[in-house]
């Protein structure tokens, strides 16, 4: 068990190192850098000032030095400074995390509470009209762009209520807080629910093919008992892994949804930082996203191993 965890941790570090290199190099390929953008905002280019600024921001150093500088700082918890706001990157990123985390949590909750039961129902009634209908719904969920869904929600909200949720960092009422987060969370969560449903359905179908399901039937257990007692207990395990898959999936949805609903979370911040070529922000944000995805998957693996009585480490 210990050896297994160590091995997994090591692989995780290798992956994160690789990501850091790729992101760093990618961003340096970018034609046009922060200096150009800052100067562009001024509508004005003075080569001497530009060189000064470049030196000031450390962009004139060799790439390897820049990289080592970044990683070195990262290991000490120093993420550098935002080129644009000149604040420590950490200070810019940290306050945005809870916003996105809340949104992601709600979306995950929404997707699990809708996706898992519907996935089970669909699998249990495999081949029925209900199954067909649910599959069509889930497929259409995967086909609707989240930003479009967000726009439709906004349109509907305006024409029905004459208003729309506008993000407010300090909601006054409980209800306001709920609408601020819940509406966008549903826009993202719908797509995730569709994915959850599909994964749950196929994992459930896989379970229903198992020998012990036949054993349960042979014992004289009713269909309901077979499905919800024997199968679901086992199907819950793979559903945990859904969360791992969903972590990455959800972030994609959050990027567009935060943009549509104007939510100042980290996902939209990434888009803005890209637009400004704010390297310290972009590279740290992408690293952060990668760490979240990798760590979530690691935790899911560990959780799975801990919960499932069959898995023994070292096998």
């Amino acid at each position, binding site marked *: 068990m210990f050896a297994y965890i160590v091995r997994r941790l090591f692989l995780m570090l290798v992956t994160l190192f690789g990501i850091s290199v790729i992101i760093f190099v990618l961003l340096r390929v970018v034609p046009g850098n922060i200096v150009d953008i800052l100067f562009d905002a001024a509508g004005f280019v003075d080569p001497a000032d530009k060189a000064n600024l470049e030196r000031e921001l450390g962009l004139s150093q060799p790439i390897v030095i820049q990289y080592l500088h970044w990683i070195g700082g990262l290991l000490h918890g120093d993420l550098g400074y935002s080129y644009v706001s000149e604040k420590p990157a950490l200070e810019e990123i940290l306050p945005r995390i809870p916003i996105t985390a809340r949104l992601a949590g709600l979306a995950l909750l929404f997707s699990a509470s809708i996706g898992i039961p519907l996935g089970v129902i669909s699998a249990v009634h495999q081949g029925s009209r209900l199954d067909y209908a649910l599959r069509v719904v889930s497929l259409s969920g995967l086909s609707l*762009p989240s930003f479009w869904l967000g726009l439709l929600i906004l349109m509907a909200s305006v024409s029905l209520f004459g208003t729309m949720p506008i993000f407010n960092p300090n909601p006054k009422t409980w209800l306001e807080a709920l609408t601020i987060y819940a509406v966008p969370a549903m826009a993202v969560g719908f797509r995730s629910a569709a994915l959850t449903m599909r994964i749950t359905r196929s994992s459930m179908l896989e379970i229903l093919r198992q020998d012990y399901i036949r054993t349960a039937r042979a014992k004289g257990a009713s269909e309901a008992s077979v499905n919800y007692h024997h199968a679901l207990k086992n199907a819950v395990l793979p559903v945990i892994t859904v969360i791992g898959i969903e972590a990455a999936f959800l972030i994609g949805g959050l990027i567009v949804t935060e943009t549509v609903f104007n939510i100042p979370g980290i996902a939209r911040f990434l888009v803005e930082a890209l637009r400004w070529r704010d390297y310290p922000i972009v590279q740290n944000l992408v690293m952060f996203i990668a760490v979240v995805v990798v760590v979530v998957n690691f935790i899911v693996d560990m959780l799975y191993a801990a919960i499932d009585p069959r898995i023994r480490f070292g096998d």
Partner: protein
Amino acid sequence: MATINFDSELRRAGANATGGWGRFAFLAQRHVLGTVGLVIMLLFVLTAIFANVISRYDPLSVDSAHRLAAPSALHWFGTDSFGRDVWSRIIHGARISLAVGIGSTTLGATLGVIVGLASGYLSGWVDLVFQRVTDILQSLPLLVLALVMTAALGPSLPNVILAIAIPLIPTVARVIRANTLALREQPFVEAAKSIGMSEMRIALRHVLPNTIAPLIVLATAQLGSTILTEASLSFLGLGIPEPYPSWGRMLSESAAEYVRTAPWLVIFPGIAISLAVFGTNLFGDALRDILDPRQRG
């Protein structure tokens, strides 16, 4: 015991549909949703091919006299703020979506097959390295990677295709690698080896053809998500640049200003994206059922 009509039962099971058209008709009947998906996909492809014939106006032509016109007989889907015909723009937008969809899927699948084959076949350190690279690519969400790449490369059609293709590589490579590993143990590969066939030849002649079915299934499944990713990138302003009528771009422009005054600018491109993706997803699902029986549900 209820009486059983053997003929109808057999027909339901597809027993008399043994080949060619009969088999197709059977599958079409069996997979109604898949057929619907296929029809949508065909319409989508035909639309892209015959865009010039179907569209009623030049999608780029500006008309100051008919700006923001509501849908009418003249302009089926209305016009945008430049007086450009939305119907024609959506029709031409199919080309972009299709080009990105097929282009990036093909590119991603090809590279994925190469990586997967090499990784599964050569094993050793090559495999190790490729595995780590796949790990790395998989721990970043598709959209994040594509965003960073288009930002790095600059917004243009080829760059968008490339940016969407790269994140596809690991998905394909994983499947191909697993298949290759399984196939390597097969007797016919052993046999080929025993008669002195080169590794390369075995990989290309024996292993590759046997991975085609899962590859097709995977590629179709990915097609929809590539179309969506392009739309998202364009929506965020980092995808296909103006004046090309990309659906996502059309939405981002109109969404900024006309959600209330000209809802047709928001509704129709959104329907176009959803329908195209829905069609490919339906078809992909049916294809998986048919070609990849292990997954059959």
